[in-house]
């Protein structure tokens, strides 16, 4: 029994990883919308690499940055913040479509490179709601 459960768990982990990878690829091709009907909005972000650190900038326009949470795990950063107010998709684009979709929060998972050291992250929020996350690199590498 135990062996089966282990296998099942392994498959489940693999399945989740595949799904994540597929989602990432879809997002990169721009085929996937950057919002979802459950109210989630995916922010734009950029990663810069410096010799000793990574700097991630995230555009959190219209977010209530006092609710921002940034959690780092070994291989990813999870970002979340509520919007200042609920926004309908139709309000953003000034269109008739999307009236039913209300956006309430930003949520995104940013994969971290192998040599990133999530323990030392620093987060800074600029008044214009651009969030800067600095992730040091592990010193032992190289």
């Amino acid at each position, binding site marked *: 029994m135990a062996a089966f459960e282990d296998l099942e768990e392994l498959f489940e982990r693999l399945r989740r990883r595949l799904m994540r990878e597929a989602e990432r690829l879809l997002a990169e091709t*721009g085929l996937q919308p*950057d919002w979802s009907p459950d109210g989630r909005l995916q922010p*734009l*972000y950029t990663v810069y690499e410096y010799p000793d650190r990574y700097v991630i*900038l995230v*555009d959190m*326009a*219209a977010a209530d940055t006092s609710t921002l949470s940034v959690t780092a795990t070994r291989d990813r950063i999870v970002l979340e913040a509520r919007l200042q107010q609920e926004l309908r998709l139709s309000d953003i*684009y000034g269109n008739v479509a999307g009236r039913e979709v209300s956006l309430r929060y930003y949520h995104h998972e940013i994969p971290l490179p192998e040599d990133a050291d999530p323990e030392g992250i620093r987060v800074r929020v600029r008044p214009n709601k651009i969030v800067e996350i600095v992730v040091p690199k592990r010193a032992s590498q190289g």
Partner: protein
Amino acid sequence: MEYEEFELRHPSFLVLGLPDTGLVGVISSNHLVETLKMREVAGIDFATMMPPVAVISNGDVRPPLRIFVHENLMALTAEAPVPPASVYPLAKMLVDYAMKRGVDYIVSIVGVASPNRINIEKPRVYWIASNEKARRLVENAGIEGFLNGYLVGPYALILKNAIRARMPNLVLLADAYIEFPDPEAAAEVLALLSKITGIEIDTKKLLEQAEMIRLRLRGLMKQTRQALAEMGGPSPLMYA
């Protein structure tokens, strides 16, 4: 194609708002159109070379590139990035059109990818001029020239075509976030544009709506990033 007759006063300026770094041009021309209540008079569509996009504006079907007029100012707005294959014909066409219409200056609005943008409170604006006449426009504006670097994409070709055609083309470049729409950079360019053209441009509303503009333009920003990357060159990040 032009769909309405119009008279252009002189000295006339054609402001180009093509998708580029930080969408500074797009945001600037959209704001001009809105705040000056400019009249839509013409549009550009290449049947086989533009993305298959029809723009619906207040129920009317419009081409992806549109031209608006107000007194001596024309503004070009874009709803989709220019695909790499269309860059050459578009650049030629725009310069030819400006000549035909008797435009005195083409003003290109561009973002300079600035990795340090997050630490800059007030984005700076730089200039590149195609000739002496264009240079005289900014001589006394108190801004620095853009001395060394690259310009990649449609604006680079427009500049080169303008030089060949002896058409004054002034390129205004603002420090901008590389991959985020940057209304603050657009506001700085518009303030300068107001100074050199003498046209009053209120940017208060632009800054008030900055966050909504950033939200709205996320999709276009992503597509633009991709289009610029495909255009290759030294990489879209290497402006400075």
